[in-house]
């Protein structure tokens, strides 16, 4: 029972923490709750579909296609997080004003609500499909089914609780700093997911590894330790990263930063040109 709880907890934790960060980052945007809920629903549906596919058509669902699906999901999530951060870079001031209840409504139109829903759905789908497969096996296994489903429920509940705690913790950050904290969190989250995607693309044989492990920090911080796992979720910590993962990580960081500050970069560049 305890083992089942731990497995479900680990599967749920990542999705739960990602949703907490995204919920924090989208604070002040109207109706975001409804969109996030829709995302959770869509994600669970998708997770069940993937699990069904994996158990009924396993010969077609080989290592390569699993890896491709994972890479696709992760890269989609990265692009949605990028969009969100770029949008926030220009709208953070309005949202901050609204939170302090002096400003007006954030402009309608291109609010990243769909991005919010898609990120949530993808996070739930990726982690959920493994959880669903596992729970199905318990249900079909008979024997200790009742005890194990109780463990599974406990694991899911603890994972969700962790997300709620993170969200409540985020809300304690002063409004003045709030959006810069969440956008830095999303920046590193996106870079970490991108590095994971690179790992899967390499697994599918689409990208070279550029060295299987560029460095090994397992002795200092084991990736399977509690801190290692948390850092893996938040900033994409990998104890033995391959070259391509490092490249993707740094590339994503640079790309998002350039897109977030493109206005400033352009001013700097052309301002310098016109001054000289």
């Amino acid at each position, binding site marked *: 029972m305890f083992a089942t709880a731990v497995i479900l907890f680990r599967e749920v934790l990542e999705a739960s923490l990602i949703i907490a960060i995204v919920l924090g980052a989208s604070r002040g945007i109207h109706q975001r709750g409804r969109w996030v809920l829709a995302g959770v629903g869509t994600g669970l549906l998708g997770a069940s579909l993937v699990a069904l596919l994996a158990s009924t058509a396993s010969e077609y669902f080989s290592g390569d296609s699993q*890896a491709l699906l*994972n890479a696709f999901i992760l890269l989609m999530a990265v692009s949605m997080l990028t969009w969100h951060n770029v949008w926030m870079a220009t709208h953070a001031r309005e949202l901050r004003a609204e939170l302090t209840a002096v400003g007006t409504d954030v402009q309608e139109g291109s609010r990243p609500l769909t991005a919010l829903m898609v990120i949530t759905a993808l996070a739930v789908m990726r982690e959920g499909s493994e959880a669903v497969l596992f729970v199905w096996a318990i249900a079909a296994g008979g024997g200790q089914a009742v005890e194990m489903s109780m463990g599974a429920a406990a694991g899911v509940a603890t994972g969700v609780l962790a997300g709620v705690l993170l969200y409540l913790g985020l809300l304690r950050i002063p409004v003045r700093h709030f959006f810069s904290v969440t956008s830095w969190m999303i920046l590193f989250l996106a870079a970490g997911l991108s590095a994971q995607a690179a790992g899967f693309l390499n697994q599918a044989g689409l990208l070279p590894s550029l060295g299987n492990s560029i460095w090994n920090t397992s002795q200092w911080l084991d990736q399977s330790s509690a801190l290692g796992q948390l850092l893996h979720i938040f900033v994409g910590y990998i104890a033995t990263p391959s070259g391509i993962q490092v490249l993707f990580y740094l590339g994503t960081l640079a790309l998002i930063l350039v897109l977030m500050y493109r206005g400033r970069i352009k001013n700097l560049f052309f301002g310098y040109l016109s001054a000289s």
Partner: protein
Amino acid sequence: MICLKEPHSIRMQLLYMIMIIIYNILMVLKSVLLIKGICMIRPLLVFSALTLLVGAPLLAQAETVQTITIHDKQFDPRETSIPSDTKVKLIIKNQDSFPVEFESRELSREVIVPAHGEISVFVGPLENGRYPFFNDFNHNMTGTIVAAPEKK
């Protein structure tokens, strides 16, 4: 191209990646800073030619296959030898009625093997050494892949 005899050489892979990075930086510069007048056709041609030169031998590698079976909540064999510096296809057969997540941080692989299912996953080319793997759904289930030079 002298390096073509060694399609796995990291130097070639690096060269290939550097080309992609330079190309991408150019594209970003072009779109973000709106620098006009950079001719993008020539770099594109160079890029495609390099992709073909490097990619073709990589795709044409011969395939070594190794099978690992899962039964009675254990990997069998616990230790699998594969040739180093070669791409190897691992076939993992699950005869148990529980799904298994074959995972290895050292190999950076993570695949679900459904109950009574079978999947394939590529590893390598690896340097000589031992690469542990485990079942993420049951950490008592472990195994090792040993990469060693091929006997001729």
